[in-house]
């Protein structure tokens, strides 16, 4: 499966970034779910970071990863803070069936971002000239 995504900015961000239009996130019971438009942040090496409101809405605190297992996060400027992390299910339309990943949250996150660990599930081509992000999930992995 191979899907191309817009590289242009989304309506709610002033920063140019590619996006994946439809990522569905569910809690492990499958009882709560939400569709997210997410931005790709290649400087973030987790799977997915979401604002606290979404984390609470999906009741992800029921599936939290022990904080000892989650290292303190460091930003480019050297600031450190602790994340809350939960196991969750995600699905990407036309591309990825239900998969368990770790989702992070912090009060400082204002919009959902996907990071390199999620990107590493795919073959990703960032075509700057065409302003397109191409994601491929190899058929033999399905």
């Amino acid at each position, binding site marked *: 499966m191979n899907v191309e995504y817009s590289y242009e900015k989304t309506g709610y*961000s002033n*920063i140019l970034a590619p996006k994946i239009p439809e990522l569905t996130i569910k*809690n*492990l*019971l499958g*009882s709560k779910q939400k569709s997210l438009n997410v*931005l790709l*942040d*290649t*400087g*973030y*090496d*987790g799977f997915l*970071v979401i604002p606290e409101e979404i984390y609470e809405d999906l*009741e992800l*605190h*029921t*599936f*939290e*990863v*022990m*904080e*000892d*297992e*989650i*290292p303190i*996060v*460091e*930003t*480019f*400027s050297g*600031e450190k*803070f602790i*994340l809350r*992390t*939960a*196991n969750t299910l995600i699905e990407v339309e036309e591309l990825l069936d239900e998969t*368990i990943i*770790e989702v*992070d949250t*912090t009060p*400082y*996150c*204002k*919009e959902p*971002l996907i*990071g390199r*660990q999620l990107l590493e599930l795919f073959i990703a081509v960032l075509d700057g000239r065409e302003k397109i992000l191409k994601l491929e999930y190899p058929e033999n992995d399905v």
Partner: protein
Amino acid sequence: MPNVLIRDVDTDTYTNFKAKAAQEGLKLGEAITKAMQVWMESKKTLTKKDKQRQMNLLTYRKLKTTLHKEYFGKWILIGQGEFLTSGDTLDPIISKIKDLKLEGEHCFVFQVGKEVQKRTFGFGRRVQR
């Protein structure tokens, strides 16, 4: 962002604060914003979920050595301040959460000893302090 005039600030505290902010390379407004955020955070009262989290954390701390010795690699569920179940997969954990109607309550669900990659936010521009 608003410009504010603040009266009745203690002179010594203000002088020291301003010097410290300069030393850290922060504008006074930035430093005061951070100080206000820290102060507000410290005033937060604990919610029911926060209390559950603390209880679960305490249980984990007590059991940590045993878990790493006897349950290494297994999925663990800690909730209601107790070690509730373990399994080789997530299935028994999910069943237990359903059986005990724990959805919405704080629980820890994790694989003992699983290495979690360190998180770094490259430029941190959209993860704002």
